[in-house]
């Protein structure tokens, strides 16, 4: 009986082990692949299959090798890549390519599922203006100019043996003047390099959302060098046996994703910084393949407080991407606050995207007093946009100035300016529209949507004469800057104004207590807690801005350089020496007490 019981237990345990078998889903390290992996995961879960996500596993080579070794069971692949990985010539006919990869991969025990319905080819893209200026429409047009141009590519493209950078330049017979290579996971910033002019041409995926968003020119591949890359799941044959429901689940996605859909989804991840899992689930729910939000992970999101008044769309995206990178696996959400730092101070949000002016409060005496917050990294630069209404043409003519609500960046900047200038009264409003104000002040990055809206009924005024008096010293958070000509529609001249750094910030937690907050009976307060140094450094790296933090604002301790300490005195503290002496005397006394003769 006992033996039987033991045997039953053992069988139970073993079957337990089997029940825990899950479908391991890989994926490459860029947004589109992650979205597709998440879609596969969602459909598999919907079909009752347990899923282990190993998305963002690495490049094609790592995924394919993991798949062959059985470390993963399925990942989204492209048929063109499938051919190239086996050293086959590229094909431009999708159906033929599909038949070819199916027959090639079958002996390896790998099965190609039905195509998702879109092709994501490699391509080269340029800014419309630049391409026009150089007269380039196809890759062949680049050949003569390549020596003077910079191309931006990512590592994966650089290393691809048959359809990568090397083979492409060999096929077209060109040599670029310089090549910027980014790590694969920083793929979205290729577009940044195109926009800021550090690259003239970049390598893109034709389903990248940015191509449409930024109106880029996709260069024509006139030699048909880039093969067709149609997305399809690549599955281990034994996974189809282990999970009989898998084939049906994957088939539901067949042909459902066209290139436009994919561009939109990619854009949601790359531009709007939404989490791939949420994007994938929302898209599936929209197509009616799964129920909306069923089984969505309800982990506590990381909140980033920001002010919608500044309309800093690109900077917010940069900041969100950085936060997402620093908090892997967590949902990151924006929270609108007129005074984002106040939300951080009460512990409502761990992070805030704020301008440097928000780090100080203007006292009644006209002095700035620092608020207890510290910055983790630079997300951009916010400019004072002074927008005159009606026929107001000079700053000196402005008597009443509309600002955002009290505590907002706009209001704080206006307060500082009002403190430096005579006869300026402020009207704080919810949305910067006040009928009786002569002008409105927005502290926002150049190109802010809020400013664009306000400019329809007004014009940008220069904030001049700031360097007279001691303003530069008194208010170091505002620095002189210029909004370049042509930044806004109808802006012919550069506008002299002030600017302030836009940074990610959090609370300063002053803890001078030598006794740690931990301990066997201790309970740590959770209201406001400091970010760990590791997270701060991860955030700063993820923001990836070359600019350092404005010294006028307080930087997180992890970012401040360690100061060389001055030579210490040989006896740093006589009080401690005295205490030490007392302890030693006490030890002596204890020894005497122990050893002294017994009293009669």
């Amino acid at each position, binding site marked *: 009986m006992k033996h039987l019981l033991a045997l039953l237990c053992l069988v139970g345990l073993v079957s337990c082990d089997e029940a825990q078998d899950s479908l391991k889903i890989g994926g490459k390290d860029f947004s589109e692949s992650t979205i597709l992996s998440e879609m596969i995961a969602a459909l598999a879960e919907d079909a009752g299959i347990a899923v282990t*996500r190993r998305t963002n596993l690495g490049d094609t080579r790592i995924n394919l090798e993991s798949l062959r070794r059985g470390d993963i069971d399925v990942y989204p692949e492209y048929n063109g890549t499938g051919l190239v990985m086996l050293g086959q010539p590229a094909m431009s006919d999708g159906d033929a390519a599909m038949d070819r990869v199916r027959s090639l991969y079958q002996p390896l025990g790998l099965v190609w599922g039905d195509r998702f319905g879109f092709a994501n080819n490699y391509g080269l893209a340029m800014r419309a203006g630049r391409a026009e200026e150089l007269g380039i429409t196809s890759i062949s047009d680049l050949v003569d100019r390549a020596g003077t141009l910079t191309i931006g590519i990512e590592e994966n493209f650089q290393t691809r043996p048959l359809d990568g950078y090397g083979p492409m330049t060999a096929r077209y017979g060109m040599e670029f003047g310089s090549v910027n290579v980014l790590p694969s996971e920083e793929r979205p910033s290729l577009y940044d390099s195109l926009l800021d002019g550090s690259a003239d041409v970049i390598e893109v995926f034709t389903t990248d959302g940015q191509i449409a968003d930024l109106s880029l020119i996709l260069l024509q591949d006139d030699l048909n060098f880039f093969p067709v890359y149609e997305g399809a799941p690549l599955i281990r044959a034994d996974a189809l046996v282990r999970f009989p429901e898998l084939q049906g689940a994957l088939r539901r996605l067949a042909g459902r994703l066209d290139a436009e859909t994919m561009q939109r989804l990619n854009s949601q991840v790359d531009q709007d910084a939404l989490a791939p899992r949420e994007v994938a689930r929302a898209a599936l729910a929209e197509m009616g393949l799964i129920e909306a939000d069923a089984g969505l992970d309800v*982990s*506590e999101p*990381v909140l980033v407080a920001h002010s919608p008044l500044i309309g800093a769309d690109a900077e917010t995206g940069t900041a969100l991407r950085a936060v997402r990178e620093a*908090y*892997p*696996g*967590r949902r990151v959400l924006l929270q609108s606050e007129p005074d984002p730092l106040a939300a951080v101070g009460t512990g409502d949000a*761990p992070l805030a995207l704020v301008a440097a002016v928000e780090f100080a409060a203007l006292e009644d005496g006209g002095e700035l007093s620092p608020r207890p917050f510290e910055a983790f990294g630079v997300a951009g630069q916010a400019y004072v946009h002074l927008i005159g209404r009606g026929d107001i043409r000079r700053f000196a003519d402005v008597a009443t100035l509309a600002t955002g609500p009290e505590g907002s960046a706009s209001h704080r900047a206006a307060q500082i300016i009002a403190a430096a200038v005579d006869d300026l009264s402020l009207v704080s409003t919810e949305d910067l529209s006040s009928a009786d104000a002569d002008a409105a002040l927005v502290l926002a990055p150049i190109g802010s949507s809020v400013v664009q809206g306000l400019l329809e009924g007004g014009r940008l005024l220069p904030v001049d004469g700031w360097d007279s008096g001691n303003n530069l010293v008194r208010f170091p958070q505002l620095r002189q800057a210029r909004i370049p000509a042509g930044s806004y529609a109808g802006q012919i001249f550069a506008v002299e104004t002030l600017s302030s750094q836009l940074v990610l910030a959090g609370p300063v937690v002053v803890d*001078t*207590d*030598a*006794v*740690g*907050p*931990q*301990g*066997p*009976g*201790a*309970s*740590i*307060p*959770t209201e406001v*807690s400091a970010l*760990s*140094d*590791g*997270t701060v450094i991860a955030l700063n790296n993820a923001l990836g801005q070359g600019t350092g933090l404005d010294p006028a604002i307080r930087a997180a301790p992890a970012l401040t350089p360690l100061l060389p300490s001055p030579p210490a005195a040989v006896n740093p*503290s006589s*009080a*401690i020496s005295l*205490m*030490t002496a007392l*302890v030693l005397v*006490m030890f002596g006394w*204890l020894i005497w*007490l*122990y050893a*002294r*003769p*017994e*009293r*009669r």
Partner: protein
Amino acid sequence: MSEDLESGEHTRPSLFNAVFIISLACVAGIGGWGLLDPDTMTSTFLGFTNYMLTGISWYWLLITTGFLILSGYLAFGPYGSVRLGADDERPEFSTASWIAMLFAGGMGAGLLFWGVAEPIYHFEGPPGMEGGTPRAAREAMVITNLHWGLHAWAIYGVCALVIAYFTFRRKQTSEISTPIMSVFNGPEGKPIGTLANVLGVLAVVFGLAGSLTMGTLQVRGGLSAVFGFDATTTLSLIIMGVLFVCYMLSATTGVDKGIKILSNLNMIIAIALLIVVIVFGPSQFILETFVNSIGEYFSRLPAMAFRMFPYEDLAGWTSGWTLTYLIWWLAWGPFVGIFVARISRGRTIREFCIGVIFVPTMFSILWFAAFGGTAIYIELFAGGGLAELVFADVTSALFTFLNYFPMGEFLGATACLLIFIFLVTSADSGTFVLSMMTTEGNLNPPVFHKMVWGVLIAVLTAGTLLTGSIPVAKAMAITGALPFSVILLLQIVGFMRAIRSERPDRTRPREARGHVDTAPAE
């Protein structure tokens, strides 16, 4: 009262009124100060503690390691076979109940609360090396075991042994002052003894109230993590109210009923939780971690037990972690010591040391291998993400962790219950000990005293909860450790002098030959 227990050698003062009344007055004074002006009180007490902790950091590590060495000597040296009681006496409680009560009184909720969080903290930021690596994982387990292992239990062991020896072997009163009075057996003994007793009472009262405040917040954190309640002061006060009723019921029924039953229940639930984590977690990894931790902890103990960072500028780390833990254990020393002494009647010193120091240490190594080990496993091999959640909210670390397991909600609720019962057992043994301390060491103190102290602790805890300040609770909980360390050293001197008489082969102190000393128990 128990005046008849007094040896006739010197007249002991009647401590009942003195200790009870002086203690009450001091508690009222300090408590009132804390409630009226919590900021000043906190900064005064914490400032004092900080100064002592950083200024003479070496002292704390040295004495606690000294306690460990001393208990090793007592267990395996010439006095190992001395019985805490008459030579033919047998243990009052079964070994299982004894160990269950040790845990319930001595560590309790901390094990649950920090089981996941602490290894993760060290894994992510070990002193002097890069975090998040396999090497950091090794270091994390060793550091955690250093904080929760032999040192902690050696402090308790020594605190308890000095009391238990005089109580059960010498048939003297079970008080803080008893070992000290054997050193100062002249007229100076009376005030010194009273002072020691009052300090002991104060350390226990405030230590307990501070710890209960923290514990209530832990339960509250658990309830809001598992059931989604709003973490409000009202909820804290409700928890405190239920806690009060439970511990008063338990304490008034005495050690052999309420306290024993609850402790056993607690141990069973804790072991069940441990088994769930081992079976449904990475079993192989946990057991490998356990075996590896044993080897690594014991082999690195000699160096770690003396490890300070004078060259690396890591003094902040040492005081924030290792010394903070030692101070906490010391702060709980007077109360756990008397309680452990109370339940250890009839055991030999060797048995006592192994039971109080070695067995619990092995259990906590297993505990941390299971909880901390699984957490590190999640970070290293299972996708990670736990560490960020732990850093974001330590209070819910355990509950977040349990959500990785099947029926996580149920496990979370069980953990909540367990933390709560641990609080009850800590509070009831604390109330019991306070009543003993203020009734000249009466082993079964009257209900009146239990009521007085039970209510007083509840009032102090509720007051601290109303201030809503964790630093206040912390200051109350640990400040008593500093003066108590001196008292403990004096107790040890008294004990070591007295125990010499257990060895007939050893020369007695000079001038003592022929002197009729308090004889070893017949």
